[in-house]
């Protein structure tokens, strides 16, 4: 592969029309394989999912559909599963908040305080991925179980409403927070790392105390990372069903992901409902992302 690379603003290669045409087509050549892959295996499947979400069932034949433009699927799915949608957004929102609260000090310490320990800390954040997240979630189930240490201590202190952690929303939120924490830490760290420590020192030199410096200098400079981190945490958390399945209860903590999964695999004739729910979830999330990026965003993200 021979690539003609121009630095931004560098003069074009001083050669004849041949090089010029090559430079013109090169970006498309570079883009083509990846873009084709995404077109065939991302865009087209979504289009197909959309057509499925509009299909109607043959009356009396569960599992058989015909092509249709039936928006009733959406209405039925949304009214029946509104609580699940609500839970997904609520649980994901709380988990994102906790993940942020836990991640910021960690990212901050890595960027400004860790010195030569930085590399090791980075490893510590990524390494748990390799102990499968399913295994770790099941481990949390045992740790938080009624006979486990956490519930026992809290129950001795009489501070646990209801007396259980697992099978409640608390365990689900705790699981979501834990599992998506690295997706919050890494972008915040990446944006803090780019902050020149001298800028923060300058805040101190201008007689701002530590907190004021943090609020007016450090935090705003890390906003692109916070933005990316909240999105990378919230989106997978809202679509997750593993935590609700393994840590939650059968009734009161199911999220929209659980419904989509069971409509696909367990309910005969559930395809259109599952597709309608998937599409609504995606539309909702894309809309939120759009508003969020508009409100706080930079174009660094895209």
């Amino acid at each position: 592969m021979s690539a003609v690379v121009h630095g931004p603003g560098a003069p074009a290669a001083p050669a004849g029309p041949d090089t010029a045409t090559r430079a013109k087509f090169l970006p498309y050549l570079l883009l083509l394989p990846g873009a084709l892959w995404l077109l065939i295996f991302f865009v087209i499947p979504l289009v197909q999912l959309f057509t499925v979400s509009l299909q109607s069932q043959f009356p009396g034949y569960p599992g058989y559909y015909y092509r249709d433009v039936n928006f009733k699927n959406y209405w039925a799915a949304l009214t029946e599963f509104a609580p699940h949608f609500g839970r997904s957004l609520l649980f994901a929102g709380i988990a994102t908040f906790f993940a942020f609260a836990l991640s910021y000090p960690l990212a901050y310490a890595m960027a400004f305080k860790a010195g030569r320990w930085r590399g090791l800390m980075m490893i510590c954040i990524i390494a748990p991925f390799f102990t499968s997240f399913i295994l770790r979630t099941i481990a949390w189930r045992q740790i938080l179980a009624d006979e486990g240490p956490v519930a026992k201590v809290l129950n001795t202190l009489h501070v646990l409403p209801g007396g259980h952690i697992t099978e409640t929303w608390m365990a689900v939120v705790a699981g979501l927070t834990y599992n998506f924490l690295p997706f919050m830490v890494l972008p915040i760290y990446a944006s803090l790392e780019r902050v020149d420590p001298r800028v923060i020192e300058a805040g101190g030199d201008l007689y701002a105390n530590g907190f004021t410096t943090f609020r007016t200098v450090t935090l705003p400079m890390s906003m692109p990372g916070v933005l990316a981190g909240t999105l990378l945490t919230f989106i997978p958390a809202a679509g997750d069903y593993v935590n609700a399945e393994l840590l939650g209860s059968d009734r009161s903590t199911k999220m929209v992901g659980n419904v989509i999964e069971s409509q696909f695999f367990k309910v005969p004739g559930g395809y259109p409902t599952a597709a309608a729910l998937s599409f609504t979830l995606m539309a909702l999330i894309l809309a939120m992302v759009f508003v969020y990026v508009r409100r706080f965003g930079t174009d660094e993200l895209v």
Partner: protein
Amino acid sequence: MSAVTQSRGSAYKPSTGKRIQAWLADRFAMIAAVLVLLYLFVPVAYTFAFSFNNYKKSNITWNPEGSPTLKHWKNPCGAPGVCDSLVKSLEIGAIATLVATILGTLVAFALVRYKFVGRGAGNVLTFVPMATPEIVMGASLLTIFVQGFSRVGLQLGFWTIVIAHIVFCLSFVVVTVKARVQSMDPRLEEAAQDLYAGPTATFWKVTFPLVLPGIVGAAMLSFSLSFDDFIITNFVSGSETTFPKFVYVSYLRGIPAQANVVGFSMFVIAVSLVILAQVIGNARKPK
């Protein structure tokens, strides 16, 4: 922990209370960071501990009789399915990482280095998969695999998993490599050209080595995402079983302790490889 402290050269001596306060303020972030890291390791430690459990029926409660035992470590493939699913996960991770890294790096270069019609669309196309919940991606892929591609002979299984993993890894590779290319100093390449290096030489001698750490990082990220993926895999795998799927499916019957052995070993292997790479990198760096 070595914290970077800067002392303000001033003559006045603060009171002891103030000094303790300052000491804590300086280390607050580091202390909090260590606590969060420990929290990240709690379930890993649990997994490790229960790999030594001499359990009877299911590996949920600790059996003091005969524990700790090394028998699961001596025979990690002893439980059916553990090693088969692990090998499948490693194979899928390797293929998906290779393809996603190559395609993603090419896309990243195109998007950063050139202005062309369709660049905006390219940016959006690579970003949207990251903003798509896994369950939606899984559901849409399952639909197209079942209703469309099975007619051309592509059945659910190993290759549909690989295809799906490449889709979500690709976006992460593009973002990671893009950031690296963007942060490169363009003057380095200009200098190379001033020194009469042709475009090809400039690319291979200057640009590529500078971007390489970003590409390696992207590949590692890809592999770990692919290796640990469950939701998308579960949708498109048919009867094929990866390691996370194996653990999930065997949860109801009880997960064999061999899965703990494998999970913890993968963790140790990954950490050792990264540390080794860093040590080699540091040794090579001119002092």
